[in-house]
Structure formats: C-alpha cells, structure tokens
C-alpha cells in the first residue's frame, strides 16, 4: 500500500467501493448470515412462525443416512476427479515439455476444454457412455462389462468423475507446463551427467521441484470438485441412481428447493461454508509461500 494517501477526498472513496460492497453485503454476506440464522430455527408446518432449536438441525443431518451418503459421495467424487485429472495432466505436461517441435500446437489443442461449461461437459460424456447408443459403452460391453450408469451406482459415479476430470485437465496441464518450464535446465543436465535416467530424473529432481505447483493444484481441484461441478452432475445423473451421485452441493439444492426443508438445507449450507473457508485459508497460506519460492 502507498505510504501516504495520494488523494484527499472524503466522499469519493466510499462512492468507489459502494457498488462492490453493496453487492457483497446483499448477495453474499447477508445470505450467509441468514443461512446461519435459519439453521437454528424450525418453521411450523405452515411456514408462519419459527422457533429456536439450537443445533438440532446439525445433529439431525449427521444422523441422516442420505446426508452421510452425500458426504461419502463427495469424498469419493473429489478424490477421483483430483487424482485422475492431476495424473493425466502431469503426464501430458511432462510429454509436452519434452517435445521441442509442436509444443505450442499441443498446448492450443489441449486447453480448450476449460471453456466447456460443466453442464455441457456432463451431457457430452453422458452421450458417449449412454448404455443404449453410446460408443464408449459399446466398447466396454465388447470387453465383457455391461455398462449402465442409469441403474448401476458405481458406473454413474465413474461417469461423473470422468467427465469432471476431463474438463479440469486443461487447467492442470497449463499450470504443470508452466511449472516444468520454470525448472532450471542446468539442474536436469547435472542429473543427466551423473547418469540418472529420464525416469529417475523425473522422480528425484523434477517431481520434488514441482511440488508447490502440485499442492496448489490439489487445493484448486478439490474446490472445483466440491463446488463447480453442480451443473455437471445435475444435468446428467441428477444425483441418481438412488442418490449414488448426490454430492453435498446437490443435496443443499435438492433439500432446499425440492424438499423445501429450510432448516436442514441451511445447516448443510453452513457446513459447506466452513469447508470452503478451510480450503481457502489453506490455498492462501500456500500462495504466500509460493511468492517466496
């Protein structure tokens, strides 16, 4: 920040922050506080009055089998998405970093899935895996497995993991490639002179030097899998079959808008807010270190 204020104006700075602050207060902070408030209230059957019930909704959701199921689904889903998209992106980035000729072309051809909307990413893989016309499903059938994400819980989960990971690969690829290109060539050359094979060089030199990027991407991918994939799941499996792909954000929406359970949905919102806060804090503490590095 500038040491002394370059401009003295009493009203102007307030006018300048006003639009941002107004939107923040009305549509972010007020709803968040409201969720906390509603999560401690129980409405009567007609929605006319409500009474304070303390932590009852929180206790209720953690005793609710469908909530713990969503919790497990979210854990499986975000682990799957993060592992698959990070692994594939790292592989592609390492290869692109090796290739001298055509690296830029590969980059251009790999980054566009970032622009595909989560809903559309879901729908197009939904077609590819569709058990009655899908090409991928057809080949899986030939291999001897009867693929059907419409009735099999595990297939449905694999479908949404795959679609979500596909969309995130381009983002991870860009950051991995930038990270790889920032590693000093001299280090790799020194290792090569010492007789380390390319494979060994990767694990002992390159991968450790890449760890800040990997950690950063890990957090970003978890946040992505938790919150940005609502559309992808809602537009395809819609949480089914039988709730097997219902994640936490999907459940907040379903219980709130479809089930009209205000208190329960609000309690779920609050739990999710705590999770994002924790993740954001981790992300920002890391960014501080990245500056030093």
């Amino acid at each position, binding site marked *: 920040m*500038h040491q002394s*204020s*370059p*401009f003295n*104006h*009493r009203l*102007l700075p*307030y006018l*300048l*922050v006003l*639009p*941002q*602050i107004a*939107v*923040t207060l*009305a*549509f*972010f*902070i*007020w*709803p*968040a506080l*409201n*969720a906390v408030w*509603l999560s401690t209230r129980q409405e009567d059957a007609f929605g006319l009055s409500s009474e304070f019930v303390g932590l009852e909704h929180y206790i209720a959701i953690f005793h609710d089998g469908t909530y713990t199921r969503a919790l497990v689904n979210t854990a499986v889903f975000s682990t799957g998405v993060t592992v698959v998209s990070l692994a594939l992106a790292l592989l592609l980035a390492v*290869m*692109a970093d*090796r290739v001298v000729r055509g690296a830029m072309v590969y980059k251009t051809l790999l*980054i566009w899935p*970032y*622009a*595909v*909307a*989560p*809903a559309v990413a879901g729908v*197009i893989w939904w*077609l*590819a895996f569709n058990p*009655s016309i899908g090409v991928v499903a057809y080949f899986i059938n030939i291999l001897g497995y009867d693929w059907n994400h419409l009735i099999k819980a595990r297939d449905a989960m694999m479908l949404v993991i795959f679609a979500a990971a*596909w969309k995130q690969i*381009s*983002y991870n690829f*860009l*950051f991995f490639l930038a990270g790889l290109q920032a590693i000093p060539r001299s280090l*790799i*050359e020194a290792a*090569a002179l010492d007789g380390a094979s*390319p494979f060994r060089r990767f694990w002992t030199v390159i991968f450790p030097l890449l760890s800040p990027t990997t950690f*950063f991407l890990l957090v970003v991918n978890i946040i992505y899998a938790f919150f940005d994939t*609502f*559309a992808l799941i*809602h*537009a395809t499996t819609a949480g089914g079959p039988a709730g097997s792909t219902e994640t936490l954000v999907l459940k*907040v929406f379903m219980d*709130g*808008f479809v089930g009209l359970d205000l208190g329960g949905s609000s309690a779920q919102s609050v739990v*999710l*807010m705590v999770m*994002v806060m924790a993740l*954001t804090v981790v992300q920002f503490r890391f960014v501080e270190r990245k500056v030093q590095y």
Partner: protein
Amino acid sequence: MVENRPWLTVIAHVVLLLGLLITAFPVWLTFVASTHEGTALTQFPMPLWPGSHFLDNYGTILFSGAKAAGGQPVLLMLGNSLIVALGIAVGKIAISIIAAYAIVYFRFPLRQTFFWMIFMTLMLPVEVRIMPTFEITANLGLLNSYSGLIVPLIASATATFLFRQFFLTIPVELVEAARLDGAGPIRFFRDVLLPLSRTNIAALFVILFIYGWNQYLWPLVVSTDPSLTTIMTGINALVRVPDSEPQWHLLMAMSMLAMLPPILVVVVMQKLFVRGLVETEK
C-alpha cells in the same frame, strides 16, 4: 533437450496424440449426433460419421426450438446467454476496478473492513448459499429479470485483488506527476490508470466471459420466465423431458452451440486467456 533419446520423443508424441484424441472424442461424437435425424440415434452404437441433417437440426433448434422442452428458439437462448455473460464480465470488472482504486489510492476509515468483506466473497460460492440468496433476490423483486441474472453474481474478490496488485506496481512518481499537472483523482483514474490496465482488463474479460456464459444453477433458480432461458437452462430443460430418452440430435446440436462461443474465445485469445488464468490465481 538434455540428451538425444529419439524413442522417448516418439513416446512423447504418441502420448500427446492420445491425449488429444481423448480430449476431442466426446466433442466429435456430439457433432456427429447433431447431424443425424432422431431415428438414426437409436442404434447401438450410434453412427461415428456425420449424417446429412446438419442444416435441418440446427435450423430447427435455432429458430423454433425443441417442442418437447417448451419450444423456445435457441437463438433467443444464445442471445440471453450473451447478455448475461457480457453483463457479468463487464459488471465484475467495472465495480472491481473502482473498488481497487479506492483501496489503493485513498486512506479512509473502514478501508480494511471493506477489503476483508470483499475477500469474504471468495469463501461463499453461490452453490453453498443458494436458498438465502434466492430469497433476498426475490425480496428485491429481481426474479425473472436480467438484473436478477446478473447483479447477484458480479461481486468479485479475484478481480479486485488483481487490480489491487497491479495498481501497487505502478510507481508513486506517476501519481505525483499527475497531481503536479493538476489532475484530480478522477482524471488520474481515467487518463492514467485505465489505459495502463488495458491488458489486465482484457485478460480478465476472457475468463469472466466464460464464467458468465457457463452459469447454470443461478439462472435455473432465478428465472422461470421462458423468454429468459439461457442456453444452459435450455439444455437442462431438454435433458429433463420426463419419461423418455432425450432427443439426442437436438440436444447435441444445442450442446455444440453452447460450447462454441467460449471455445472460440479461448482459442482466438489464447495469450490473454492464459494470462488471465495465471493472474487470477495469484
């Protein structure tokens, strides 16, 4: 290259080509499906080569829409998506750049408080607080309006931080010189800061346009008026047609049209896009 190992380079190309194939494959299927008539898409597996109904399908969907899903023409949905995406991108940039300007160039009571309030928005994605946000939007009478689709989403910590970081790198001498020349705060902002921020604004615009175009949940809950359908809620409506397999040919034509604008933006403005992506994560 550190050493010459031709077979490794070959492997690298093979892996990359496989990667490209996996990446492009579903989009190819989508395109193929969008060029066949509905009855061709009942065989297992579906055809792998484009059919002859490209113009039919796209014509139908663009100008009259899918009957099963309310029959809104997709041209209208694309128009709505464009308005929403532009509104969100421009809105976020506009309110963030002036907020960052105030925070960097002025000393005033509550400055830190405002800064932290803006920071808080990072931790409150719309999916998490959907019910109460819907409620306040309804209370403000913004349901079924473009303002309702746009305004609640335009607060941006990321954009504010980006501009703040950038302003902090601008030498103080520049401000002093401007002041000696008699420029007031508004003049300085308009004639010095804004032109200097041009690249940042463009990079941010690319990212935010994509963000706005791809919005799904918010339009789904704030607008029930068919004339406000965006392309994403339109896709949802066509997927959700009860008790039947979706009309794949129309659904896939719609998906193609939904993908095209943001992909074009990324490919054409690749440099700005990469810059925006990297900058916003700092």
